[in-house]
């Protein structure tokens, strides 16, 4: 009892082949789309690689790029096969390749699904990476004279301006690090020395933030220094002041940005997966109906097409047996003929 059997006349088969040819070319285009989305994600991640700690997040865009390229190749081949299936002589060329092609494509669609799911699972790793990366960046903000870190200040400033954020979780992160280099501190002044002595690690900490934290929408010129001191500024209350600095943390801002990109990509990959699956179903029907037509001896008559020759359970059982017997190919079957190494006298004694 075949699984999901359908009958195909010659006309229907030809139309199916033509439609599948067009759909395969559409799939090539979606493969290119996947490739370009993977490339875009890779470029976006590399743009801010200085703010991300070493974590395994490059695997997502790499997977998308690989899947996109393989999809292009597979669907290109599929298009060629379907185009040739209309013509009997050309179909015979592809007869032997068709079943392996379908199996490869079936496993490939699994890869596409895995790619889509990876997009959604990236969130946790990304957050970890950004958290650590931003903490480091804020710590090394002042090191504009250290090779390898001299552009970190510029990167962090431009990030805070572009993403409208301040610090890792909030602006208070800047209160806990020394972001003014010692080169610019007058060590002979009393209040500088007081500040340095006021904490265990001897760092110059202050309740001030860099200029890039300033909020453009504030009606008041930006207050960057002595933020927690209400009396230092006229008509100012730091607990209720919301428009002076950017309130969002940069980790949150970057995470939202990347999540948005990755979720849109994930949705597109899921839709591509469904499309690929439907094209594969069509190709399977085409293959089985053509092979049945060949078996009947007349390709111009009606033939049946199905997804599986026997039902689901039967097919599973048969495949399991095949897999079991693969392991036994080196073993000798002693059941019927006995061990051929031992001389068994023949049963007929009559001479």
């Amino acid at each position, binding site marked *: 009892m075949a699984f999901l059997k359908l009958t195909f006349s010659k006309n229907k088969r030809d139309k199916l082949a033509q439609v599948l040819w067009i759909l395969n070319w559409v799939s090539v285009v979606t493969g290119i789309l996947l490739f370009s989305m993977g490339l875009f994600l890779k470029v976006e991640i590399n743009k801010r690689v200085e703010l991300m700690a070493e974590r395994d997040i490059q695997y997502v865009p790499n997977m998308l790029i690989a899947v996109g390229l393989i999809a292009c190749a597979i669907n290109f081949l599929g298009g060629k096969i379907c185009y040739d299936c209309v013509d009997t002589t050309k179909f015979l060329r592809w007869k032997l390749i068709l079943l392996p092609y379908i199996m490869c494509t079936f496993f490939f669609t699994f890869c596409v699904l895995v790619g889509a799911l990876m997009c959604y699972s990236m969130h946790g790793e990304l957050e970890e990476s950004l958290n650590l990366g931003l903490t480091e960046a804020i710590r090394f903000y*002042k090191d*504009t*004279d250290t090779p390898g870190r*001299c552009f970190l*200040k*510029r990167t962090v*400033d*431009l990030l805070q*301006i572009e993403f409208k954020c301040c610090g890792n979780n909030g602006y208070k992160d800047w209160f806990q690090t020394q*972001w*003014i*280099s010692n*080169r*610019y*501190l*007058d060590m002979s002044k009393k209040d500088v020395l007081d500040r340095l002595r006021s904490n265990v690690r001897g760092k110059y900490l202050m309740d001030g933030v*860099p*200029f*890039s934290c*300033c909020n*453009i*929408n504030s*009606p*008041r*010129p*930006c207050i*960057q220094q002595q933020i927690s001191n209400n009396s230092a*500024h*006229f*008509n100012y209350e730091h607990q209720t002041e919301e428009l002076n600095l950017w309130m969002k943390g940069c980790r949150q801002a970057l995470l939202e940005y990347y999540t948005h990109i990755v979720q849109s990509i994930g949705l597109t990959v899921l839709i591509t997966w469904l499309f690929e699956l439907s094209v594969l179903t069509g190709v399977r029907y085409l293959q089985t109906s053509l092979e049945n037509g060949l078996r009947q001896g007349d390709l111009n008559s009606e033939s049946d097409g199905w997804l599986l020759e026997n039902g689901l359970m039967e097919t599973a059982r048969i495949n399991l047996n095949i897999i079991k017997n693969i392991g036994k190919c080196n073993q000798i079957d002693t059941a019927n003929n006995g061990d051929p190494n031992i001389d068994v006298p023949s049963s007929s004694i009559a001479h």
Partner: protein
Amino acid sequence: MVLLKIKFTQQRRVHLAQGLWLLSWTAVIWGAIIFCLGVYLKMELLRRDEVMDNTEIHVVPNILIIVGLASIGTNWVASCVCQDSLDATRFPRWKVLLLGWFPVAAVLCCLLISVVVLSFALQGRLEESLKVGLRNGIRFYKDTDVPGRCYQKETIDRLQMEFRCCGNNNFKDWFEVQWVSSRYLNFTSKDVKDRIRSNVDGRYLLDGVPFSCCNPSSPRPCLRYTLTDNNAHFNYEYQSEELNLYSRGCRQALTDYYMELMNSTGPGVLSVILIQMSVILGMRYLQTAVEGIMALEDPEGESDGFLLEKGVKETMEDLKVKALIMLQFWLVDPIASEGSSEDADLEKAEKEASPTPAS
């Protein structure tokens, strides 16, 4: 004496029509590109509308938009004419339209040339407009509570950060203006009172700049107050410090940006002018060749194509005479209803009078 005569065989005529058809479709595409360029330029100018005093510079994108649309229409008509030119039954209906087509196409070329000229000539006006606009923007920076000016601060801050510039000519423009609103000044403080009394207008002036002037590429955290006082900051020299703030003025930055934008449209406009002129020349040859062949009534034969039937001087004379006749006709016409019958009688009398001496 014909101007630039070329002989056209049937084969040549066909090639000319096909080539001209392709060229006119290319011109349609280029016209669309010019239209898009004009729209883009206009949008960019409108985005910074608040720091510009007048809209004189808008004439450049306006002309580009009009020319783009007109060029699409004109060249589309040209392609239709080319398609019909080899068919003797369909070509005559385009004859009258072609008389009007040539002046329109010539006007388009002139407008395009004027755009190129204007984009250079209006640079001075653009700078003036920006100077006044930015001066006002800086002056009203503090008025975030005045309706109509409350977004001036945000506009100027965004502008300075995006274009990496500070002030009108340079950052010292901020020293001459009170950019901290009185709402945030503590009038009981001695320092504030001193500053206000230190100048004639009673304004709170300081040698400081807003945060948007800060340069992120500076190795040092931004210094934006007491800039002229070397002792106020450690290891700081006001005269030689270059990286702390943006050194460019916003007027210069914006002028450079818009000039670059208009100059980059230059090659596109020039190629459209060239293509349009080739279309005009080709169309003239095609028109005269096809009309010649229609006069001969032999579709397979040879005909002449030319630019002008008579020489340049003679054609100008002809045009002058025609224009005068049209003018006279137009001037005489309103009075014609009263005077024409009298004139006709006079003419009749003259005619009757003249043969009598002969007979």
